[in-house]
């Protein structure tokens, strides 16, 4: 059945909720493995489901791209839960422990279910509601740790998020007014190139831009990434961004496809602004989480390049880069979460001498950072190369230059951290970190994946053929 992954996720959510009532504090450590099992089950179900088909009268449709998006969400969820295991278990240090793990996991799973649905919606109402389900729980997760910063982060996130969804809703209203239908696939035929369509498009882009942290709408990201607990920040930077991209692709490819080609230059400008601002401000960051926020903003800038030319190659490049970005980003976050968990600090300078204390950890972090910077043996290089190739194909050679120089600037600030780890001597009295079993397994998996995705071509080829099929289905 097409909707199996979503159902499994929701079922796990409920199971955890109910079980939580009966378990003692010590027994609560069972919840995380259970959640992981649930997600793994959903993954298995996803692999089993075919990547085409329609359900519930067109409300829920499955296509190759949606399949890949769901895979990214589930992988990201699995890894994030694995990374948060340390903080959720009972033995976690009191001051940084995430209390009430049951509820935390349930909300996370519901949020995941919202994202999964998001990838397969084909009408405005389900899209809006799924998007809200994919966003509102994040306000809660951001504010989970009721310390001074958490509340503020949650509130700010909530205010900006609500405003963005209001704008989005207003845009959807205009869209509905113009076409009279809620079916996304029916809209392109009914839309004409007049200023009202443009207004609706702009509002929707603004609403989704908030979630994807595109430049004018990115202001919230640094502070919420800093305020939220590190695992939630990881989840935000990977899953929420992927959901944002899924929605943007849904909107631009399904609804505004006829105008996508002409609006290429506007997308190019947006991408340049996002990349450049993200990279420039990341240089001066001292807090590792704010640093990762700006790095994520610049990655969003690169992702936008896939829309130029509006072809299936662009879509494939974006989906592939998203998968690579997710894996690489989580490998870096694994080390950040561990470091924060055991030393409580989020300053970049506190990473000095890590290569002497835990050589393997430092190596994994370095590989992750180089993956984000797009350095060859790692898959980040192939991902970025594909996006730049799409931009060149669409004729924006100047943009390829800008993007390449931007990734050089990004190399500068990634190297700043490598410098702290490898060149600076460890602070006196610094004690090596002791990674938990779950976290080191996740770290190993992500690093290996980020290496393999770049070398083994099968993943990219699959995404590429899927995108080609998807574009035809879009065509009818």
């Amino acid at each position: 059945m097409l909707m199996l992954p979503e159902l499994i996720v929701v079922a796990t959510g409920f199971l955890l909720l109910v079980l939580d009532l009966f378990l003692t504090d010590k027994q609560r450590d069972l919840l995380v493995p259970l959640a992981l099992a649930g997600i793994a089950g959903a993954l298995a179900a996803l692999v089993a489901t075919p990547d085409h088909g329609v359900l519930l009268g067109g409300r829920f449709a499955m296509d190759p791209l949606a399949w890949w998006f769901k895979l990214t969400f589930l992988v990201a969820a699995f890894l994030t839960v694995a990374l948060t295991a340390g903080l959720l278990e009972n033995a976690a240090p009191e001051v940084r422990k995430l209390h009430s793990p049951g509820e935390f996991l349930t909300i996370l799973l519901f949020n995941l279910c919202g994202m999964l649905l998001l990838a397969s919606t084909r009408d405005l109402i389900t899209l809006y509601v799924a998007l809200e389900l994919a966003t509102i729980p994040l306000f809660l997760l951001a504010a989970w740790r009721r310390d001074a910063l958490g509340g503020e982060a949650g509130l700010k996130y909530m205010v900006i998020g609500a405003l963005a969804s209001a704008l989005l809703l207003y845009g959807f209203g205009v869209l509905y007014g113009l076409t009279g239908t809620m079916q996304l696939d029916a809209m392109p035929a009914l839309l004409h190139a007049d200023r009202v369509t443009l207004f609706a498009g702009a509002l929707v882009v603004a609403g989704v831009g908030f979630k994807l942290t595109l430049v004018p709408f990115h202001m919230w990201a640094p502070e919420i990434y800093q305020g939220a607990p590190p695992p939630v920040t990881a989840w935000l930077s990977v899953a929420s961004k992927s959901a944002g991209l899924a929605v943007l692709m849904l909107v631009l490819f399904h609804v505004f496809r006829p105008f996508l080609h002409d609006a290429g230059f506007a997308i190019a400008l947006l991408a340049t602004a996002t990349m450049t601002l993200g990279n420039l401000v990341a240089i001066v960051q001292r807090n590792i989480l704010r640093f990762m926020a700006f790095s994520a903003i610049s990655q969003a800038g690169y992702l936008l390049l896939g829309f130029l030319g509006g072809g299936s190659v662009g879509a494939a490049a974006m989906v592939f880069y998203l998968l690579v970005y997710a894996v690489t980003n989580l490998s870096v976050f694994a080390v950040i979460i561990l470091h924060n968990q055991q030393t409580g600090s989020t300053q970049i300078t506190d990473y000095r001498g890590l290569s002497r204390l835990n050589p393997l950890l430092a190596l994994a972090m370095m590989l992750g950072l180089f993956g984000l910077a797009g350095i060859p043996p790692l898959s980040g290089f192939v991902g970025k190369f594909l996006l730049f190739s799409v931009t060149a194909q669409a004729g924006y050679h100047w943009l390829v230059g800008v993007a390449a120089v931007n990734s050089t600037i990004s190399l500068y600030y990634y190297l700043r951290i490598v410098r702290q780890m490898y060149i600076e001597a460890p602070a006196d009295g610094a004690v090596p970190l002791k990674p938990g079993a779950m976290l080191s397994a996740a770290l190993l998996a992500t690093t290996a994946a980020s290496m393999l995705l770049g070398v083994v071509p099968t993943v990219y080829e699959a995404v590429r053929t899927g995108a080609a099929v998807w574009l035809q289905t879009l065509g009818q």
Partner: protein
Amino acid sequence: MAEFLAGCTPTLTHWLILTSALFSIGLYGMLTRRNAVGVLMSLELCLNAAAVNFVLFNRYLAPTAQGGAERLDGAVMTIFVIAVAAAEVVVGMAIFVAMYAERRTVDVTRLDALKD
């Protein structure tokens, strides 16, 4: 007097101007109110304006729209908007209360601890 009234029976544009006015006032509220709850109230204004919009477009449906008598999309959408608004307020208030317990202030402008 009657002809005058008949003359300017409200067309779709009039309605839309009303809703966009309401939306803009809500927007103004969100951007200027210092009390967090005030901001949420202005948010409710915006969402309400958007909800009315949907019902409006449902009544003045685009001529090209297909589907038989049960074209209830707009109405159903409004119901869901109200539900989402409710969820947002719940979350907003929960966070607001938790934050108030920690920071003892409701003033949004004083919540700037999180800058570099």
